[in-house]
């Protein structure tokens, strides 16, 4: 299975800047992390990939067939989990899943089985009869994940899937996604770098409507070797680093001084400097800022 993006651009109105600027990429089964700041074009790209938004130019093909032409057949293979949003308050969790099953074209018998499984997967089995308006943020997030899985999709597109989940649920969902990704294309857009760091086959970093960098997490981190440092500085020295425009990845108290993690080409000239192992957050900071 191959989902190919060919030179996709999107301009919302004439004269406006390109929200997606000539993206070409080929997805094969596995988990992909999509990172980028707000306004980078992630949501626009996902809307195009879910066939909700036509691109201004370019095309998306699934195994060679254009998704616009595939229409319902493409959407039958698609599972989409949007960002947290308003749901149908008067539906119970179970009713909502039955509604989504109807929309996904499942038969009654199929729906019965997959809804049971989905509710157990997202740990909402006991809360299935509660109305959605009584669900917490995390529960709403889980019911959205559940609906995305109902049709056993080949392509799973998830926007901030772990936002609002407690650490235990976050790990549980992350592991589940990793498990099911063997024969699926899973695209996860997130701001939480750790969500995709360990399960992604590849990471795509977007900014200004373009994919500015892509590669395996290991490769991206490898590229950052020698560019991440920690330095113990005074308050004044820290201020000087900020004013210099140094990319600061974190600050912690170290006695009466500050331990500052910086991402830079050259070691900082201030404080007691030591080189440290980079992580994906450093990559993100380096590429995006």
């Amino acid at each position, binding site marked *: 299975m191959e989902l190919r993006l060919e030179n996709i651009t999107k301009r919302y109105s004439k004269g406006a800047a390109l929200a997606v600027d000539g993206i070409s990429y080929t997805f094969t089964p596995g988990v992909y992390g999509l990172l980028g700041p707000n306004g980078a074009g992630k949501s626009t790209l996902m809307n195009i990939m879910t066939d909700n938004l036509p691109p201004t130019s370019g095309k998306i093909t699934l195994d060679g067939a254009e998704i616009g032409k595939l229409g319902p057949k493409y959407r039958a293979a698609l599972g*989409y989990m949007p960002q947290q949003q*308003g749901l149908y308050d008067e*539906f*119970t969790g179970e009713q909502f899943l039955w*509604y989504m099953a*109807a929309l996904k*074209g499942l038969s009654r018998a199929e729906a019965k089985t997959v809804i049971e499984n989905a509710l157990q997967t997202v740990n909402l089995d006991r809360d299935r009869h509660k*109305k959605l308006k009584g669900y917490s943020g995390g529960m709403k997030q889980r019911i959205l994940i559940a609906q995305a899985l109902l*049709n056993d999709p080949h392509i799973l597109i998830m926007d901030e899937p772990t936002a609002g989940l407690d650490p235990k649920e976050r790990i549980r969902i992350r592991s589940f996604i990793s498990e099911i990704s063997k024969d699926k294309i899973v695209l996860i857009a997130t701001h939480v770098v750790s969500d995709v760091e360990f399960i992604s086959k590849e990471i795509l970093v977007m900014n200004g409507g373009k994919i500015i960098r892509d590669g395996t997490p290991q490769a991206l981190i490898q590229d950052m070797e020698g560019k991440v440092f920690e330095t113990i500085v005074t308050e004044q020295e820290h201020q000087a680093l900020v004013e210099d425009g140094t990319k600061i990845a974190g600050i912690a108290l170290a006695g009466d001084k500050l331990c500052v993690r910086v991402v830079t080409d050259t070691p900082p000239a201030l404080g007691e400097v030591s080189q440290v192992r980079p992580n994906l957050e450093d990559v993100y900071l380096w590429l995006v800022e």
Partner: protein
Amino acid sequence: MRIYGYELIKLRKRSTLWITAMLLVLGCLVLCLVTMPGDKLASLQQEEEDFAHYEMVDGVPVLVIQNSEQQIQDWEAYRESYGIFINEMADRVDKMSSTSLFGNQNSFAYRNLQKTQLDYASFAGTELRYGAESGVRAYNDYTGSILFTLAFLALLMYYVLYDERGQNLLLLLKGTKRGHGALAAAKLGAMLSGATLYVLVQELAVLGYFAITHGFGDLTRTAQSVSIFRNCVLHITLGQALALTVLARIGVAWVLAALLYLVGTVVRSEAAAVVCAGGILAGEFFLSAAINPGSSLCALKFLNPFYSWKMSCALAEYQNINVFSFPVGKGIAMLVLGAACIAAFAGAGIASFSLRYQVKTASRFSGLLLWIRQHTAGLFHTVSLLWFEAYKLLIGQKKILVLVLLAAWGYSEVTAVSGVQSFAMPADAAYQYYMNQIGGPMTDESMAWLEAEQQRMADLHRQLQEAQASGASEVEQMYLSYTIGSEISLYEEGLQRVVNQVEWLKTLPGGLSGKYLVNEPALTNLWFDTQTDTRLWLIGSLIAVFLLSGIRTGDEKRRMTTLLASTQNGRERLDRARHRLALLLTLAVFVVSQLCILVLYSRDGAFGVLGQKLSWFSTGVFQAGISIGLLMLVIFLLKGLSFLAVCLGTEALTRTTKNATVTLLLGGGIVIAVYMVALAFHTDITAAILGLLY
């Protein structure tokens, strides 16, 4: 800005609240229209103020006389009795005081008598003037408006307290410096302000309606000029009485608003609050209706919002409450108790808001609902998109209430046309009587019945002549002339119309078979009654627009469209399901709106004469040879198409605007504009078709 100002701003931005408020005022006026049809309209229809008319009682016409001369005589009698009532008050009090029952000067009974005399003493010589008073009486009798006020207050309570609580916003607000007492007081202020505004608008609308349809007459007359104010001990004019009533109703609304506020701060579940407040109010209503005015518990009846809502009860009925053996005027007691209730409810409500955890928690009631949902979950084990779309609209958006109102409206329309028929002339009533007997297919039996009736009429004439020719006494002759003559005058002309109609039909080619005795005037009146048809279309269409405006727009509001559209059936099939739902709802509205017309057709015997050609009408107004059945079919088809146009138009608007409010305003505006045009040209679908068939 003060917190109160922000509470008002938040309320102002609740478009659903204000749209519902407008609909409630409209509903209140519709209830006026149904329960208090204007005298002026009636007199315009009859084209004279004093009229005698015939009503069908058990299928037989009975003469009913309505005469304003009688009303004037009644009023004169009232004026005289009022003078006697006031002037002889002192004598009556003296006589009663001398009895043992009232003689004890330290008793409530004695003091009550003295106070009563004192209260009425200043009314000696009060000038009473005759004038139109039907509007005042109608406004007094129309107490249904309290239900609409309660509905608005319940909605207001929801938006002031429950909506924010449901979103956990009260936790955020209560975490601020002024988030306890000041915020609670501001919310109470918002509720009282909303109640004042709504009652003011509603009452002015109702007063306006009665002013137009009934008339209030000279408002500078003393209130006692109208007999319902006979016992009033206030020196006020009729205009002031109306104004005081509006103020009193605002006061009642304040008490109710404060009560709901208290309930809203104490009870955290909406459903439980509705049950709790509903129970209290039902109890109050029961007390107002069931307690005897003379009972020792009468204070519970008089000091009651339902009792106080009625103008005559609030201002005119004279009662003193026994307070430690001292009589206190009912009006004063009402004011004091009302103020005390508001203060107590407000104080308790503010304290409750500040002290209680303002987060929605599971209650026993919600536990019960959960149990019900668990046991009815199977209903939703379906993959029918139509079912889910209907659920989203009717339950999710609570538009099932509109369907309930639709049913109530249909019932009221059917009831309104199912009552006693009224006729201005005896001939009309007699004609209806004969149609009830022999209307429909012409048969040998019906013709034989008609001949027998003609023979009966001839016998009556003969009896009358014989009575006049006989040597009976003058009194006997008068009696016979009266009884037989009135029988003849009641039936003869109507019978002659039927005979003429039969004669006309006999002149047409063919025998009796295939010919029908049609109630021509009734059917013609029904067909040319453009007002009823257009009114039904207007109300039905507005209901349809309101219902349909939510079908496609609810998902936009919840930002669900992209998720739905990313599914296999989330586009064309979903749209088809929504279209089918729109059609089903429109069909329901159409059927309900036309029920009363079907009842009228049935009453006028139209279903028994479907085969009759229009050109066979004895009036000769129609040239077309189509049958009544075909005409009715075409009429109903075109009416159905007009509702279909409303349905499709509303669907197009929802697709274009993606906003329920805009759709409602635009769609409603177009429907009203079409109605106004039809009204201006005195036409509708039926009249337009008949115009072609002339």
